[in-house]
Every structure is written in C-alpha cells, then in structure tokens.
C-alpha cells in the first residue's frame, strides 16, 4: 500500500523524502515553539499570581488576547500583518527572508506565543493549588518575594502541572499543521502535495496519520516519564489528569486536586 511512497518524484527525490522533510519542519516547529511557549508561559503565569496589580493585569491581558484569537488568525497576523505595520524598511526586510524561513519564523513565533498563553494558565493553576503555608513558611524564613518564587513556589508548581502540560505538548505538535496556510511545507502540507501528485490520497494521508500517531505516542510516553521522575512524593498518581483526554478546563481542577493531596 505504501509502495508508491518510494517512487521517484519529478524533482528526483522519492515521495517518502517529501514526507520526511515535512516531518522535519513539523518537529522543528513543535520543539523550538515549545521552548518559547514554556519560557514565556512560566513568566506570564507567575505574573498572574503576583501582588503587583499592573503586572497581574498585563499578564491577564496577554492570556486573554492570545487565547481568544484563533491560532490561524494569529498566524495571518504574524505573517501578513506584522511586516505591514512595522516601519517600511524593517517590514520590507522581513518580507525578503527567503522562502522556508520566511514562513517558519512567523509560524514559530505564533505557535510559541499562542501556546504560552495556555501554559501560563496551567502555571497559574499550579501556583494557586499550592497550600498557602508554603508562602508563609518562606516568609517566616525571611525569604523575599523573588526568592520565594524562585526556590519555593515555582519548582513545586511546575512539578504539579506536568500531567496537564501533556495536553499542551500534544496541542503544539498538532497546531504545527496550521503553518501550511502560510506556505510552510510541513507534514500535512507534504501529504496533500503527495496526494495531488500521485492521486494516492489514501496512502499519502495514511502515512501522515501514522506519523502523527507515533508522535502523539512518543509525546505522551515521555511526559509520563517526566511526570514519574519529578512527581512530588506523596501526591497521588495523576491518572485522571494525565489523560490528554480532558479538556483544558478540567486540568486546573485536576492540578488543584493534586494540590490538596499535597496538603494531606
């Protein structure tokens, strides 16, 4: 069934090479996008929990904006709109970035910042799930705000939310496919191109589907491993929360639930 993938294409490659190059772009987007999302998400998530009203409001604004605009529209904003509203010289130089990179960087930025808003909400839920005694104990020990977050709050919150981050990992690799709308030839785009070139639609989409399934399995298993490695001893195995099954709003609840277990 997959024999056609090993046939020669017009440009002297095999169709399977198209798929692999698509997979490469998908992985690159998901991997680097994830680190942008994680870095920004943790900062914004912390920002939502601090006392300073201005910082908290800005963090909330960030989350509201990036969560409530569809990722496809955000993709268009980064790709089409940003170069136009920047000063002309800067905008023109952005437009002149050669093809794959010209759509890769906007897609990377878009996915990273979009996912960051979702991670920020998880981080906030994790921080709020921590018992108040943690902060109080820290200030009793004479730790200031920064040191409390740095050594007490954030490390524990991050360990709590690993299960709910699983679905964000799954989300970011699935959302990479949206980059095809701005011309990035990632996995789904390559599958469509193969189907148009060979009329073997079933084979082309089937191969892409199997690859995505494998990615989902790898992402899920590695998050399970990470969770097992960093889980706070005594907290319940987060069986329910780790199921990527749950919609994102279940997860703050699940994190909360674990948080209560920590108190016991």
């Amino acid at each position, binding site marked *: 069934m997959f024999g056609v993938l090993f046939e020669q294409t017009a440009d002297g490659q095999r169709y399977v090479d198209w798929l692999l190059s698509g997979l490469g772009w998908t992985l690159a987007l998901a991997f680097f996008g994830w680190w942008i999302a994680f870095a920004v998400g943790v900062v914004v998530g912390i920002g939502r929990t601090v006392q300073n009203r201005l910082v908290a409001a800005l963090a909330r604004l960030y989350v509201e904006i990036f969560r409530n605009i569809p990722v496809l529209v955000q993709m268009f904003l980064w790709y089409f709109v940003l170069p136009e509203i920047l000063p002309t010289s800067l905008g023109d130089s952005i437009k002149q970035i050669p093809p794959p990179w010209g759509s890769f960087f906007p897609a990377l930025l878009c996915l990273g910042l979009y996912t960051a808003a979702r991670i920020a909400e998880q981080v906030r839920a994790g921080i709020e799930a921590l018992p108040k005694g943690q902060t109080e104990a820290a200030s009793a020990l004479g730790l200031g705000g920064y040191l409390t977050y740095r050594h007490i709050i954030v490390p524990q919150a991050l360990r709590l939310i690993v299960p709910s981050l699983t679905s964000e990992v799954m989300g970011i690799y699935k959302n990479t496919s949206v980059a095809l709308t701005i011309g990035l030839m990632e996995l789904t785009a390559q599958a469509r191109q193969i189907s148009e070139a060979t009329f073997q639609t079933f084979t082309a989409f089937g191969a892409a589907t199997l690859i995505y399934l494998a990615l*989902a399995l790898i992402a899920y298993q590695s998050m399970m491993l990470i969770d097992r490695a960093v889980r706070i001893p005594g907290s319940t195995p987060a069986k329910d929360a780790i199921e990527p099954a*749950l919609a994102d709003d*279940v997860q703050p609840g699940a994190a909360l639930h674990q948080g209560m277990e920590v108190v016991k």
Partner: protein
Amino acid sequence: MNSLDFSILLQAWPYLWSGLLFSLALTAAAFVIGMLLGTCFALVQHFEVPVIARIVRAYIALIRSIPLILVLFWFFFLVPIVLGHLYGNGRPIPIGATWTAFITFGLFEAAYYSEIIRVGLRAVNKGQFEACQALALSTFDTYRCVILPQVIRVASPIILSQTIILFQDTSLVYVLSLTDLLGAASKLAQLNGRLVEMYLVVAVVYLAISSAASQCVASLRRRYPLTGAHK
C-alpha cells in the same frame, strides 16, 4: 508603514457578517451533532459494550492525535467515497466543502465532548445509581432522568469552554476555501488589497466574541459552584 483605512469596513461589513453567520452556524451544528454523538460514545464506553466500546475508544484516540486540518482533508476525501458506497453504485458522490465541514466538525467534536461526558459520568455519586435502583427505575430512565442531567450540569462549564475552542477552530475551514468569517476577510483582502485592516478586524471580532463567552462561562461557574460533585 501605510496608513490604515478602516472606512473600507463599511463596504466589507455585509460580506463579513454573512461569513460570521456561517462560522456561528457551523459552531452550532457541530455542537449539536457533537454532543448527541459524544453522549452516545461516552455511554457506549460507560456500559463497556463489547467490540463497539473498543472501536469508539480507538476512534477517539485517533481523532485526538491528529491535527484538525488533516482530519478535514481526510473527510473531504473519504465522505464522498463512503456515501457512494452507501447510496450509489460505488461511484463517489461529491457533496461539496460546506457539507464536508459540517460532517467533519460534528464527528471531530464528538470525540472531545464524549471525553468530557465520560469523565462527568465517573464523577456521579454512586448513591445516585443505588437510589435509582431502589426506586425501580429502568436503566433508560435512570440515565435519562437522573444521571445524564447531573453530568451535563457538572460538566457544563467545560462543555461551554470546549465550544468556545470549537468556535475558534471553525476558522480552519479556510483550508477548504469556505467563506466563514476568516474566509470572507481573506477573499475581500485579495480583492481590495486592504489585508491589514481585514485581518485586524477579524482578530478583534474573534477576540470580542470568545472573551465575552469566556467571561459568561466564568460567571456561570462562580454562580453555580460544583459542590458535592466530586465525591
């Protein structure tokens, strides 16, 4: 930087409005189909119906692991073939992108709603089932009158949040060249060249609708806290 000219909106508005109506119709249809089918999926798994429960589980795992765009491509290709085998002489029946979008979103969202309802079913207090037995309610009445209403009530904030995500996801029908809100804006942008204004307006409309809806869900959650649901 070119100056922005939003006066173009006066002309564009009727077309954008019809696009928005399509987005909302698609959201509503996918919600109804998804909830009905999703409830069936959840019940099938809840009752551990042999074979079917496994198929449903595999379907949900598959749908949840691949991007929605790929699902749209799959259905765009498969639905005419399946319909051809069902109703025709085996020749594909083309049904057009609009119907494909409605069918795809319904079937796709069913996978997500069913997971929410399945978790909700597990959260129902065991005493509820026992009380129904004590009252000699049939299995059908137990679920219809006692269990499912509670599940829907407990899960409603999550169901609504998922529906907001669904509303945003409908913008992906862009890849089928349909005229939803984003599709309308992008077609107009190609005609009048005012792409910056068009996409900014679309972003603002999505932002306004989605965040207003999220605020409603949040206040709903505050007004009806889920007391006693997780025992």
